[in-house]
């Protein structure tokens, strides 16, 4: 049987390498149109707004990487309990715009073992590789990974908050977790949810590099209320209307005027650190400092084969099977 699909629009091949998934994966379930307020900055029809470089001197980019090092099994008379051993690293790249150089700051690697069923066992350390043990009540492998991922996100949030409180302007990879009133921008590369109403959404296609949409509020009245906006990093030849578009967010605890000036600054600033398509398969969204940071953090996680072997030899005979 042949299915004929009616042509609804123009077809594009995504610029990102296929293994990263598409930057434009909408998940309608995440969006709740009831809680989006599109009138916080511009009440009426939207038009692209220009970014404004206010000359901010130092920018900190925060990110984290994680890796599952091994799956472990805790053998018990009641039956086996499964767990994972993983490593994550978080850190920052501090860009001194006046000095024209970037440096890594506060790079840190943590190793965490998560067991299910409320069980747990200490992982013997070896070769200086030390795992902290935690436990979740669930036995679902997804729950183990969620806990592990959550630990990394918490570490990222703590670092972002610390840097922002020390007076730096922070751009953190991913949604913001800590909604305190500091100058930190969450930077979202993938578009999993359509937030804007059909009336305002087309303006995204008209936003050029260095411009942004007006602010809107997500989760109005909820626990995670944030200001958000879309901006374009680069006008790539042959791109579709959303190519090079990212979404940013700041805490709604900030006054609206502050949020506007941060949005203006971010719209002007981020195109300067966007990556080039021939260099980074996730260009331009994968920012140059963040790509470097991820590379450095991965390096610090250690050679996976080496870590795996060290773990195996450490738990050998300890009643834990890796």
């Amino acid at each position, binding site marked *: 049987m042949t299915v004929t699909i009616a042509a609804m629009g123009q077809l594009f091949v995504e610029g990102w390498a296929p293994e990263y998934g598409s930057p434009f994966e909408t998940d309608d379930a995440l969006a709740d149109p009831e809680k989006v307020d599109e009138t916080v900055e511009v009440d009426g029809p939207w038009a692209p707004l220009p970014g404004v470089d206010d000359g901010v001197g130092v920018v900190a980019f925060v990110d984290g990487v994680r890796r599952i090092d091994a799956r472990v099994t805790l053998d018990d008379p009641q039956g086996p309990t499964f767990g994972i051993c993983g490593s994550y690293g978080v850190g920052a*790249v501090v*860009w*001194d*715009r006046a*000095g*024209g*150089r*970037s*440096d*890594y700051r506060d790079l840190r690697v943590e190793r965490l073992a998560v067991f299910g069923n409320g069980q747990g066992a200490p992982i013997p350390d070896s070769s200086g590789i030390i795992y902290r043990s935690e436990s979740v009540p669930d036995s679902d492998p997804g729950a183990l990974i969620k806990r592990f991922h959550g630990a990394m996100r918490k570490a990222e949030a703590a670092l972002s908050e610390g840097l922002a409180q020390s007076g730096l302007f922070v751009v953190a990879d991913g949604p913001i977790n800590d909604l305190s009133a500091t100058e930190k921008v969450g930077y979202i590369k993938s578009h999993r949810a359509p937030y804007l109403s059909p009336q305002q959404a087309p303006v995204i296609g008209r936003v050029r590099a260095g411009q942004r949409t007006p602010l809107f509020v997500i989760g109005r009245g909820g626990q995670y209320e944030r200001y958000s906006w879309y901006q374009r990093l680069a006008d790539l030849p042959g791109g579709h209307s959303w190519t090079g578009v990212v979404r940013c967010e700041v805490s709604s605890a900030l006054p609206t005027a502050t949020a506007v000036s941060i949005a203006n600054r971010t719209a002007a600033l981020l195109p*300067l*650190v966007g990556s*080039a398509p021939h*260099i980074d398969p996730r260009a331009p969204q994968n920012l*140059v*400092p963040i790509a*470097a*940071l991820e*590379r*450095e953090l991965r390096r610090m996680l250690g050679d996976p084969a080496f870590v795996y072997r060290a773990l195996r030899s450490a738990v050998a005979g300890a009643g834990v099977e890796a």
Partner: protein
Amino acid sequence: MTSKDSDNGVGRVLGTEHTSTREFRVVLDDAEYLQLDDLVVVRTQVPQQGEVRTYGIVTEVAAVYEGANFESDTHRIAVDGTLPGAKVRSAEIAITRVDPELWVSPDPGEQVERARNGEREKALYVDEMGRPLPIGLGRDGDPVFVDLDFFDGRKGGHMSISGISGVATKTSFALFFLRLLTARPDVLGEGAANLRILVFNVKGEDLLWLDKHNRYFDSVAAEGWAALGVEPEPFPSVSFWAPPRPQSGDVVVPDTGGRQEGVAAFTWSPREFVDDGLLRFLFTDATDSRNQIPFIEERVRSQLQRYAVDVAGRPGAIVLRDPIEGHGPGASVVPNPGERVITDLRTLVEGIEEFVDPEDGEPDQRWTGRVQAGTVSAFARRLHSAAHRLGHLVQAGETRRIDRRAAQVTVVAIQSLHDLGQRFVVGALLAETFAEKEQTGQRLPLSVIVLDELNKYAPREGNSPLKEMLIDIAQRGRSLGVLLVGAQQTASRVASEVMENAAIRVAGRLDAAEAERSEYGWMLPSTRARARLLKPGTMVVSQPALPVPLVVEFPFPPWATRKEEVDTTSSDPFEGL
């Protein structure tokens, strides 16, 4: 990146590449540097054996941005500053020595120190040299040594110097070496007594001023000589010899342009020519050996020795008489009326012609053997040509032989002679020197011969009595104390036996194609690349005591190398008058 255990620390052994017993790399501390030819030492703790020190020499240095994956990342790090990255500098080290001799590689991460003082000497094996003689200055300004045992014949002999004419400063280096040799009897030891040096001046008149101060000698050069531990003075004991001017009549005047005073003219008398068998050195062209000429030459040479009789009242002159007439050795006779008296090369050639190619009658087979008439003619033709080109080198009269005992250094100026004449003089003097030493069979006193354009005298292709003589010196001279300092533009054009026997090899600037030849296999690849760029006054020196060649510089000479350089203020203007 600066965690130093000692003041001499410059970096750490690189850990991302394998170290080996041949080479390793150093990642430099931010505040330190290494340049080519610097010497370093690494201490490694070897299980069960304790500390092993690895010494090495810098063969290349490098710098790169760590964190840059793409070429354009250079801008992101250096200008925009959006990419974190850092400059990393490193140096490649060729290992010269492991002490104690336990051939293990240095450990990664170990501190690398600059080798100074005693450590520097160990890196250069100076502590193991029987008699270390300075042979130049390293880039650090300290002397670099050569083990004289490998020059004066104890363990090896001879020196070979290669390089492009003009910029390679081959002759300058040879003289520099000789000056050190003569100025350091404390190092040379027993060989210093009666050391004799024979130098041929083959181009210009560069070597005719070795005894004169150089007016351009400055304080920088003086520092260099001071570092070498040698008083910067011209050669103290030199005698200069030049052939007589052709057609100068009865007055024998040395054939030199810029300098006459202190230069003696040399000639051989017909008697000396015959006794020394110098006839063979008239046939030194490599093509001469392809026909029967050597055969007839050998026969004529021995017949001359049988037939020659001194002429009473005419020193050095001879007549040719059949030995049947019964004149004993040392006899002198009064020539018969009309008898040919041989007083120079022309009359000698005519005398020989009477036997081998008479105008009327058959050739005397006792002189020619059974060779073809054409060969005899070729032989006679060459004799005439020789008489024309170097006839003035053979003259009867009181002896004017070059006296190599007159001074420590004997300079023989042959630049004015035709090629044939140059080869004749070189052959005659080498044969004389070698024969003397062969008779005594002793290594001492040492006799050093400096010969430029060795490819002319001992070419790789063909045969000649001169080439055989040089090969003989190269192979046996070491044990007889006859040491050859040979120089050539291209080592690949010199007889391989001569090159192979040189224990000490030196190169100045080399032609790019020449540097790739196997004759320079003693160089490291990095040294070869550099040899194309060496400045005048910089040489690469290889010696058996060291597994890697060293780059040395030698200071400006205190002696003049041109007339204009002669310092007239410090010497007596009436000298020689």
